[in-house]
Each structure stands twice: as C-alpha cells, then as structure tokens.
C-alpha cells in the first residue's frame, strides 16, 4: 500500500515524532558521538602506550637517537637518522612519481577522454592495484623492476655519475626500485580520491568555461583542477601517509643498509622496515629502542597529515575568498 492510498484511506501520514522516533534519533546521535570520540581515544591510547614503553630508551639515548647513524645491537649504539632520511626520501620520490601519474590518470578518466564504459574498466583496474598484497609487490620489485631499471641505472651512472642523484651503481635493492614500487602502491589511493574530487565539480562550471571560449586543456588546467584542488591535495596527503607507513615491500626492496645518500641507486633504510625486521626477535633491552623509533615514525606521520590538513584548509579559504 503506497502513501497515496494511505492518504485516501483518511489516515494521517504526517504527525509529530513518536517516542520511538525520538529515542532512536537520540541514541543514534549518542552512538555517533561515542564512535567519533573513540577514534581520538584510540590514537591517544596508541601514542600513550608506545610512549610509555619508549621511556627507558628516551631517557638513555635522548635526542642523539635522532641524529645517530649507527645501529649496533652488540655495542648498544643506536641512531635512526638514516632511517628517517630513507623514510622521507623514498616517500617524497614515490609521491612525486605516483602523484603525477595518479592525478593525470584521474583527469584522463573523468574529463571525457574515454567512453564511460572503457573509463569504468580502467578505473576498476587501477583500483585493483590496491588489493595486491605488499609482499607480492616486493617480489615483483625484485624480479621485474630491478632487472628492468638496471641498464638505465648503469647508463645514468656512467654518463652522469657527477650528479649526486646518480652517484653510485645499482646493486639490486635500492632507493629507486623501492620508490618506483611505492609509487605504484600509492597510485590507486591518489587516483581514486582525485577522481572523486574532479567528479564533484559541477558540470556547468566546465560548460561555462567552454562557453567563454576556453579550450579543453584551458578548462581542465585553469578551471577544473583549481576547483578540485582541495580534494586532490587530500589525495596526495593520504598517498604520502601510506608511503611513509609502507613496510613489507620496502623491507624487500630498499636494501636495509644504514646509508645517508642522495644517490637514487644506493641502498637505504626506512623506519617501518627497521621496525618490522627487528621487532620479532628483539630482546627486552631492544624493545624500548624500537618503541622509540615507532614513536618517531608516528610523530612524522601525524605531522605530515596535520600539515597537509592545515595547507588544505588554507588553500580552500583562499579559493573561496578568490571566488
């Protein structure tokens, strides 16, 4: 029986909310509130627990831990500067590559370059990339990416060895293969969120741009991208966060060597790989030190995300002011 028939029956379809409605409404509000607060609580608890376990190491090693370059369990000398450097360097490289391709792909898939059906196929394939396990990426990196880039790396080193970025030969695992694989891993995140952002721009804005005589590329670069910039920036921040925390593929590809090097072909190390590889067999003296390193990683991630959010809100304010 539909509403019109009900109305025809003479029964009222509008009325004040019943007690059940009222209670349901109220309790939903409370559940939502509790869930929201729980997230903050979990983050706080995480920081607190790791922080407490890290206290002995913080007292013993202090800030020197952040600037030391040696990790020697037997002599009990610990420093994570190479890991901090490796984490940021590999993530920035991956963001540069993955960000460029991810945003380009989002433009390609949303701006009427392809018939909608084929665009859907492309989109699904890109999103499938997110479902591949990290270990598989790692093995793929060892068996496919490293042999593929070796000739290029050797040539770059031979011809442009004086450029710091190409200063060493590629041994196998190293910064470049790690960054390339990482770029592919963060690609689906960036592409998916950028697509959403671009799709949310009302179609008439684009039509208006065309109406004013803009070419397709002018419309995309000067109208669509700036309008969607907040969302695209969010995509990049999320991708960067994912890159910083990525563990297994990097542990297999980066070489895990405590090197501070600008060279793209040198092995390096990252905080997440250090934690994953040392934690399973860590003795009781080592655990606080690893917790300290975990705390540093957490703080880096939080800082990056907060800085990203801050920049995002700043730019969106400017955009609104400019409108």
């Amino acid at each position, binding site marked *: 029986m539909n509403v019109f028939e009900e109305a025809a029956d003479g029964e009222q379809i509008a009325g004040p909310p019943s007690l059940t409605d009222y209670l349901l409404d109220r309790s939903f509000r409370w559940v939502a509130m509790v869930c929201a607060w729980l997230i903050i609580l979990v983050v706080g608890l995480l920081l607190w627990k790791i922080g407490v376990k890290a206290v002995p190491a913080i007292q013993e090693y202090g800030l020197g831990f952040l600037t030391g370059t040696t990790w020697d*369990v037997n002599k009990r000398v610990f420093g994570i500067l190479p890991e901090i450097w490796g984490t940021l360097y590999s993530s920035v490289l991956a963001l540069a590559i993955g960000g460029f391709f991810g945003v380009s792909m989002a433009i390609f898939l949303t701006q009427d370059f392809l018939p909608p059906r084929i665009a859907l196929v492309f989109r699904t394939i890109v999103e499938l990339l997110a479902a591949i396990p990290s270990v598989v990426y790692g*093995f793929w990196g060892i068996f496919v990416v490293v042999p593929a880039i070796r000739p290029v790396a050797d040539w770059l080193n031979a011809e442009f060895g004086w450029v710091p970025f190409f200063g060493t030969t590629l041994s*196998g695992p190293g910064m470049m293969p790690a960054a390339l694989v990482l770029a592919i891993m963060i690609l689906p995140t960036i592409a998916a969120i950028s697509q959403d952002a671009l799709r949310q721009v009302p179609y008439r804005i684009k039509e208006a741009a065309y109406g004013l005589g803009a070419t397709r590329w002018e419309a995309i670069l000067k109208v669509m991208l700036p309008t969607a910039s907040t969302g695209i920036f969010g995509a990049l921040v999320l991708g960067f966060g994912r890159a910083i925390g990525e563990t297994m593929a990097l*542990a297999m590809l980066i070489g895990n*060597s405590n090197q501070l*090097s600008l060279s793209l072909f*040198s092995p390096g190390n990252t905080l997440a790989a250090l934690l994953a*590889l040392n934690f*399973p067999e860590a003795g009781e003296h080592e655990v606080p030190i690893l917790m300290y390193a975990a705390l540093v990683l957490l703080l880096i991630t939080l800082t990056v995300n907060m800085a990203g959010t801050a920049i995002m809100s700043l730019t969106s304010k400017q955009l609104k002011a400019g409108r």
Partner: protein
Amino acid sequence: MLGVFLNLSLAGPASADEKLRLTGSGASFPFPLYSAWFKNFSRNHKNANIDYQAKGSGAGVLDFINRTVDFAASDAAMKPEEIAKVQGGAVLLPMTAGKIVLAYNLPGNPKGLKLPRDVYPDIFLGKITRWDDPRIQSANPGLKLPALPITVVRRADSSGTTYVFTNHLSAVSPEWKAGPGAGNTVNWPGSDKIVAAPKNDGVTATVKQTPGAIGYIEYAYALGAKVEMAELQNKDGKFIRPSAESGAATLATAQLPENLIAWVLDPEGEKSYPIATFTWMLFYQQNASPEKAKILREVVEYGITEGQKISAKMGYIPLPENVVSAVRAAANKIQ
C-alpha cells in the same frame, strides 16, 4: 611456584579424552624439516596435534621463557642467563644440523668458485670489492672472473643464520672479531655494495637477481633455489664443496658437553665443511602434565630415529650416532 603451577593447569587441556594440543615456536631454518616430522608424527599418534610456528630463534626463546609454548626451537641455543630464567628447568636437545653456504651469482654461472679462508671474511668486510681481485683470481686459475663489483647480500632481520655465520667469521678472522663481531644482528660495514634482505628466501632471491652478488644462506634453501655455492677452504687448507658428506664430517668433530650445546665454529679435519651448526629444540624439565611430557619424549624419539632418515634429503645433516644416544639419554629429563 604454586602460582605457576596453577596457571599452567588452567592453560592446559580440560579433559584427557580430548586431543592433546602442543604448540611450539622458534627457528625458521629447520622449519621445513620439523613440519614434515610433526605431520608424520601426528599421523601415527592420533591423540596429539603439534603446531609449530617459525617465528625465528629469538622469538622462540622469548616464548619459551614466558612459558607461552610447550616447546621451542633455536639455532642459537640459549644463553646461560636465559636458561636460568626458565621456570621448571630447560632441556636443550640438538635435533638436526645444517650448513651455511655462500651463494653467488656470476655471469655464465661458473661452477665451483673457490674462496680461501682469508678471502671470504674480507669480502664480507667490504675490503675485497671486485670479482677480478687478484686474491680471488689466484685461487681460481681455471675461472675467468668478470670485472664486476661484488654485492654482498646479508640478512636484514635478526637471525640464527647470521649468528652462526658471524661466529664463524669471528673464529676465522681477527679483524672481523674486532670489527662487526658476532651476534643475531651485527653492525655491518657501511657500503652501498652491502645490501640486506629479509629471511633466507629474501637473500636467495636478491642473490639470484643481482649479477655479482654473494650472500650467506642455509644449504637447504640454496639447494631448493638452485644457486651456485662456493667451495670454502677449511682449517686444513682444503677446498670443500657443501654436501651431505662434508657436513657429516664437520659434525663428527663436535665434542658435546653435558648440556649438549656445542659449536663447530672452525672444524678440524680434511673433509669438514667449515660452516655448520646444530639446531636445538627446547623443552621444559617440568611440564604441565605427564601426558604432554610423554608425547614430547615420543616426538624426540621420532626425530632422532625416523626423522633423521628424511633430513639428508631435505638438505639437513643427519646427526652422528654419539649425538643421537646423548639426546636419547637427555630426553628422559623431560617430565
């Protein structure tokens, strides 16, 4: 003491007619062999179910001390201070043995690379950096060595394999002993030609994919991955190919003390392969229940009789007869 006992009885199985579940954790190197053993054992003993997790030697020892498992396994045995922490006493039994080989990858896959005992420590110290180094070439007059840099591949995670290998290097090279030293993880020389990969398979894969690479892995993994293995010079000056026979010759030189913890760091004997080691299972002297203790004793008995027959096939070294009888005697302490 009473508290511990109560805890254990609570954690133990509720009734006797239920299937007895035994859990163990530890070393990953003997894992393929142990899992084959436990599978066969459970087939013949329907009342027992054994579950073994290859978490790594260090994690196994930790679990063992915390009494979260019924037994554990470790490539590095246990330190005396660790044994002292075990409530209820520990019994360490060598159950099988393995070799560590230097796997290499050279263009054209030349076989039988010979590495003298003063050369391979220097390779891992980063002092010999090229394959055409005269010190390598002079030991291999028949091989045409390429003008390639040597890429050393090491374990990235803390491991018993590294423990045994670095102990051997320390025994052979005073410079290694004074420098990186020995341990589950050591501070490797800083060089962009020394890279690390996780686990035995990670090192194997990296060696296979990197021309000019050399890395240390367990013999069983090298056999499975079909990589070339170097012949190493032993204490008597002979170059020995890693094989079941050369490993058995190494173990024959081992002198087992009362606690059954013996290392063959630099074995004597013409036919001995230089880097071999026992790997241990760790048991409690006082177990949660007599039934569990009985099953564990039967597991040991199976391992040292039937189990030894399949070990050589899987790349491990069968235990010598004197070790088998010592283990059988010590297994009676598991109560």
